[in-house]
Structure formats: C-alpha cells, structure tokens
C-alpha cells in the first residue's frame, strides 16, 4: 500500500513539474507545426505529392520534434539532486527510470498524439490512414520514450556535447520508422508489422530499466 502511494505521489510531483513547464511542451508542438509548414513550402502544396509523402513527413517530424526535449529527461532532477533524494527514499534507480519513462510518455508524447489529427488534416491524410498513424505513433512513441530514457541517462555526465543523446535516439529509431511507416502504407501487412512493433516495444521496455538504471547509478557515483 505504501509503495502504491509512493508511486502516485511521484506522479503528483511529475505533474506539478510538467505543469510549470507547460510552455516548453507547447513550444515543442509549435516547432512541430512550423516544420510542417516549412515542408509544405519546400515541396509545394500539390495534393498528389502531399498524399504520397504525407505519412513519411509526419512521422519524421514527430520523431525529430519529440527528440528535441530529450535533454530535459533526467537533467533537471540530476542537477538539483532530487534524483539522489528520491533514491534515498526507497525509489531504486530502475523504478525511477520506469516511472520517468511512463511520465515522459504521458506529458511529452501525449500532446503530440493529440496534435496528429490536426497535422494530418494539413497534410491531406485520409481518415483510415490517420487511424493507423495514430496507432503506430502510440506504440512508436513509447519506444521513443524508452530509447530517450536510455540515451539521456547515458549523457548525464556529458557536459559538452548535448546533441549526442538525440543522435543516439535517432540511430536506434530507424527500425521504428521503417516498421511504422510500412504499417500505414502497406495495407496487407498490417498484422505482421504491428506484431513486430509491439515486439520491439516489449524488448526495449524490458531493457530500459536495467540500462538506464545502471547509467543513472554511474552518473550519481561520479558526479
């Protein structure tokens, strides 16, 4: 009972932190929409091109703009010492990374999910494709959160090269983007591709706590 209460209270804290930083998230969403505008200006507004490229553009931009905010994943809590205090109050590093990943999924990726319908209207994506896009993004963004947790915990002690974390995430997100764009564009392969995506999600969700827990421990020991 105490354990569940602690987890709920952890999310209360996360909620407060993210609420005070709501404008960061909104800026992120704005970046996403502005990059859609720029894409449309650069490839031209013809409907045929847009319906051909739309899904790919949307997924790429979702990926890029959701990796923008990865630097903040653990950085703030690490720098002000909250991570140590949480650890000393019964949250193991593995538990912290699981909880943080889920909170990142809810507070950072969820707004992107909400903006998918509007973005697909702008890029002239049909309703059925939009459903698939939404589904693939729900799974894919959770994988992205896990990857982000691993890479940002790796980069906690990297004070010089902040972009390295995003580069790592982008490299490992190549399979995600292959399978999720394939999921939308190739009609008859839906079941097998979504099974592959879910499989990737489960693998990375299992690896994530151990990898990021070890990296967090390393960072706290050597700070």
């Amino acid at each position, binding site marked *: 009972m105490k354990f569940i209460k602690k987890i709920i209270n952890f999310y209360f804290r996360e909620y407060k932190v993210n609420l005070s930083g709501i404008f960061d998230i909104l800026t992120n969403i704005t970046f996403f929409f502005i990059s859609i505008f720029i894409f449309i200006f650069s490839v031209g507004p013809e409907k045929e091109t847009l319906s051909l490229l739309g899904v790919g553009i949307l997924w790429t931009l979702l990926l890029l703009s959701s990796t923008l905010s990865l630097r903040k994943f653990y950085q703030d809590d690490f720098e002000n010492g909250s991570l140590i205090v949480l650890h000393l109050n019964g949250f193991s590093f593995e538990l912290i990374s699981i909880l943080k990943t889920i909170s990142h999924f809810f507070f950072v990726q969820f707004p992107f999910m909400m903006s998918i319908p509007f973005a697909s209207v702008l890029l002239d994506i049909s309703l059925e494709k939009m459903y698939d896009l939404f589904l693939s993004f729900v799974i894919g963004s959770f994988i992205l959160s896990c990857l982000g947790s691993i890479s940002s915990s*790796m980069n906690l*002690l990297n*004070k010089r090269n902040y972009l390295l974390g995003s580069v790592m995430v982008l*490299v490992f997100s190549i399979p995600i983007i292959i399978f999720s764009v394939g999921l939308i564009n190739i009609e008859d392969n839906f079941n097998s591709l979504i099974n592959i995506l879910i499989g990737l999600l489960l693998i990375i969700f299992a690896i994530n706590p151990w*990898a990021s827990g*070890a*990296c967090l421990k*390393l960072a706290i020991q*050597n700070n």
Partner: protein
Amino acid sequence: MRFLINAKRFDAVSDILIKPLIFISIAFLIIGLLFALYLSPEDYQQGSTVRIMYIHVPSAWIALMTFLVMTVYSIIGLAFRMPFGFIINKAVAPIGAIFTLICIVSGSLWGKPMWGTWWVWDARLTSVSILFVFYLIIIFINKSFENNLVREKISAIFILIGSVNLPIIKFSVDWWNTLHQPATISKLSKPSIDPSMITPLIIMTIAFISIAALIAILRVKTEIITRENI
C-alpha cells in the same frame, strides 16, 4: 594467449610483433598491388573496374571485424572488469571508421560504372552506412565525456547495443533482394570466383589486416602510456 587481455603482456608482445608486421604489410601490399593492378585478369563483364574489388572487399571485412573485436572486448571489459578491453575499444574505433569509409567510397566508385549510380538504398549499403554512423558516435562518446570511468562503460554499452547491426550487415544480401551481390567467398561452399582473382584478393586482405593491426598496436601502446592506471 594472456597478452590479449593483459596490458603489460600486450605491450611486451607487441614490441616483438611490430617489426614483422611492418615487413609483412609493406611486402604484401607491394605484391598485392602488383597482382591486383597488372597481373590479374580483367573481368569479361566489368573490365578493369573489377580491380576496385581488391580494395573494397578487404576493407569491408576489416570494418566488420573491427566492430566484432570491439564487441568482444566490451564484453570482456564490462563482464570481467578488465580495463584493457576499454583501452582496445578506444584505440580501435577510428581504424574501423576509416576502413568503413574506404569501403563505402570504393563501393560507390565501383557502383557508378556497374549499376549506373553512385548510391542506391539497398539493404547492404544502408546497413554499412549505419555501421559508419555507429563508429562516428563511438568516437564522439570517446571525445565528449570528461570522466574516464563513465566514458568507458557507456561506450562499451553502446557498442554492445550497436552490435545488433553486425548480423544484419552479414545476412542482408541473403534476407532481402539487394542490388549488391551475395557473398562470393564463404566457408561452406566453393568460392564462386576465379582462382586467378582469389590469390590477389587474399594477398591484399593479408596486407590490409596487417596494416590495420599495426595501426591498432601503435594506438593501443600510446593509450596504455597515456593512462595512469591500467
């Protein structure tokens, strides 16, 4: 074989190995280039461009082999807590990157007359370019962390994750329909290449491996000297 995991032994053994390696690499490179550029026959389809193979194939093998070595040494470093593994990792990464670059550039030069394009997005080419990106990230990790302990462990973890790419590169030509031809030389079957071409290829491979080993030994030795503790 203890010199493979012990820094002091490695230092001693490498002192013995350096001179023969210099000799082997110079001799085999000269003989191999002679064979490759003048003595070996032209391909009946490809003409003289087939000679790019004698650079392309050995460098591709070394690019893969270097990553495999790094993977093995990451396991040694992380699991058995031997810092020598991390020394090898740091020393060897740029060599792998350079040979991957040579492989990509020579392949692209070969592709233009044969396939008609410099670059095509098939599975083999894409996975090798991802291998190059992995090498670059490993070098960046080695350059951007201030704390040695953290840097070593994180680059080792990253190498372990990145080693997923190796089987993909190896089997990409079998799994997908690629423009790139499947492997011509394999253990199980007879090589589908003429013996007059395989001799210079083997000589060039030995030359390339000894050059790579030479550079690696020099880099490992400097790395051992610069580290205060081993």
